[in-house]
């Protein structure tokens, strides 16, 4: 009889909520790395807050904030090589930035511009996925290609707790394990899929244990502990790179904001719960405590850094909006390599309308 009551449950944690941890373990992280990690996390938090504000001002469209999940996203991406592939969903803006996506490009995306989902040519980031779970298969196929070519990139697929209920998640993990391809399934279990709490999503005690269904390895990690995430990811990525196959990582975290700017989270979760996570378990807090203990960070540095990032955001916004291109005429260029005659007719019609200023 297989019964989850007989499984051993443990969660990888290096740094607890108060910034304490096993000294020897912590000593393995260089000062430089810790500062880089923290800078990234603070930076994306500022960006997230600015984007939220801009959405309220009507400068960008519906937005899915990621605050609270910085450790999971930054911690995991910093463990990657520049040429590794990542497969983001709508909530992985932090991961995309850390993997090299320019901020100005993010603005193209959140402003719904034609070129908004075009990733720069030298960046191995798949276009943002909206369909929950669909990217798990793309990541698996991409990693499969890497393996067949004898190359060494790893593919990292981001998704949420809700995504684990989709059939595609199942098919992806199964294929990945059957073919032993270098893909990491990185689940940010932020406790909710819009309004649905994870205990209504699945009766399994963890997401990580779902790996057992595929003969895959699964790890549960404290997703608000950037060091634990980094270390776990590093190990998983190196194993995958060495041909040891895929892994499922569950990073336990929490979305502090609404699902998107169209969502009212007070409908489905209470203020105390959110406060708990905000006050006690903030992923930035514990890292900052560690930095301060090591004398690596001060309030002045914090302020300067925040100011600098704010400046960057403003500049990127201005750059992105200064000469926004892309009109309805252009969308016809990206349906096929060569449009059919009937499609060309439609494009010509639209081009005429554009000349007549009927459309933009």
């Amino acid at each position, binding site marked *: 009889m297989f019964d989850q009551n007989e499984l051993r449950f443990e969660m990888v944690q290096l740094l607890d909520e108060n910034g304490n941890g096993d000294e020897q373990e912590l000593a393995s992280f260089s000062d430089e790395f810790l500062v880089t990690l923290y800078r990234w996390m603070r930076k994306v938090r500022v960006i997230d807050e600015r984007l939220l504000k801009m959405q309220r001002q009507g400068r960008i*469209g*519906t937005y899915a904030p990621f605050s609270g999940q910085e450790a999971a996203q930054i911690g995991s991406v910093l463990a990657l090589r520049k040429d590794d592939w990542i497969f983001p969903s*709508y909530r992985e803006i932090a991961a995309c930035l850390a993997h090299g996506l320019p901020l100005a490009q993010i603005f193209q995306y959140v*402003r*719904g*511009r*034609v070129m*908004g*989902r075009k990733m720069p040519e030298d960046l191995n980031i798949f276009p943002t996925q*909206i*369909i*929950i*779970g669909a990217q798990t298969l793309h990541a698996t196929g991409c990693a499969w290609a890497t393996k067949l070519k004898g190359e060494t990139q790893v593919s990292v697929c981001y998704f949420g707790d*809700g*995504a684990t*209920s*989709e*059939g*595609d998640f199942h098919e992806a993990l199964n294929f990945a394990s059957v073919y032993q391809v270098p893909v990491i399934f990185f689940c940010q279990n932020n406790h909710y*899929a*819009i*309004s*649905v709490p994870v205990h*209504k*999503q*699945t009766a399994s005690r963890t997401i990580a244990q779902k790996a057992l269904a595929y003969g895959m390895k699964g790890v549960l990690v404290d997703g608000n502990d950037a060091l634990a995430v980094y270390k776990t990811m590093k190990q998983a990525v190196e194993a995958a790179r060495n041909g040891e196959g895929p892994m499922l990582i569950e990073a336990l975290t929490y979305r502090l904001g609404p699902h998107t700017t*169209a*969502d009212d989270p007070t*409908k*489905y979760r209470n203020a105390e719960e959110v406060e708990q996570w905000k006050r006690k378990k903030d992923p930035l807090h514990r890292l900052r405590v560690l930095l301060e203990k090591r004398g690596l960070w001060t309030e002045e540095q914090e302020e300067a850094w925040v100011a600098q990032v704010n400046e960057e955001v403003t500049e990127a916004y201005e750059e992105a909006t200064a000469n*926004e291109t*892309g*009109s*309805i005429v252009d*969308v*016809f260029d*990206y*349906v096929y390599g060569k449009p059919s005659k*009937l*499609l060309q007719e*439609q494009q010509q019609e*639209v081009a005429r*309308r554009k000349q007549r200023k*009927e*459309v*933009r």
Partner: protein
Amino acid sequence: MAEITMIQAINEAMRQEMERDERVIVLGEDVGTNGGVFRATDGLLEQFGDQRVFDTPLAESGIIGTSIGLAVNGFRPIAEIQFLGFVYQAMDQLAAQAARIRFRSAGRFTCPIVVRSPYGGGVRTPELHSDALEALFTHSPGLKVVMPSNAYDAKGLLIAAIRDEDPVLFLEPMKLYRAFRMEVPEEPYEIPLGKARIVKEGEDVTIISWGATVPLVAKLAADMKAQGVDAEVIDLRCLQPLDIDTIMQSVEKTGRVMIVHEAVKTNGFGAEIAALISERALFSLSAPIVRVTGYDTPYPVPSVEDDWLPNAARIVEGVQTLMRY
């Protein structure tokens, strides 16, 4: 009579049917505690409890597939697909399973489920949230396809759909959810599935539309009247079963036809209507049928969607073209 929005009408229809018939249950993503991402199911969990309203796991095939089992074993599930673009995930369960249970079992089993789903553009959604995919289902025998354009119809059609013995896809134009209010009777009523509505009578040209595009067409038809073109506007309301008689009567009268829909043009339901008309009334046509539709590209990003959707300029131009004959 109260003036309510379409979303309120939809909510009211479900509530009243749940009060009337305890076999009616509601399931889908975020339909319970949250009351639906558009609040279509607001208050249902509170009123009917968690044995009649279910927040399901995030799995569309699962939602439709379990609804089939629920329906065959005595319930009348109303399943929500949060946005129609996600219905691709449930295509087998809808088009190959729900649609064929009666057929496969030679009538032993029926599958009375209603699949509600918001669709349609103009509201700046992320990718795959706006696609109009009705034609996938008009090509799937065994399914009924209903697409209301206003609060009154939405209530009456949804009640009829819930009472229907066959699976009904009920597609709600999200742009119209709160676009205007309308007098809607408080008591439950049915609008039979398969009866079109003549929005405006006219002599010169027939404009056939459904769902999201109807208010725009109706408004333009009113404007045209002032400019001397008397358009008849038909709101199909239901694509399957189709009210072929109302269409043909109008076509015989006007001889000029425009079809307006948001779905991409090629193989949209407009193609079927154009084909039916030219099959049945070719020699009554004074002019080629005009289709004003989405273009043959995937639904585009927000910054250009208004220029992709059927708009006033294209519809007016189409009518002018028709009147030139």
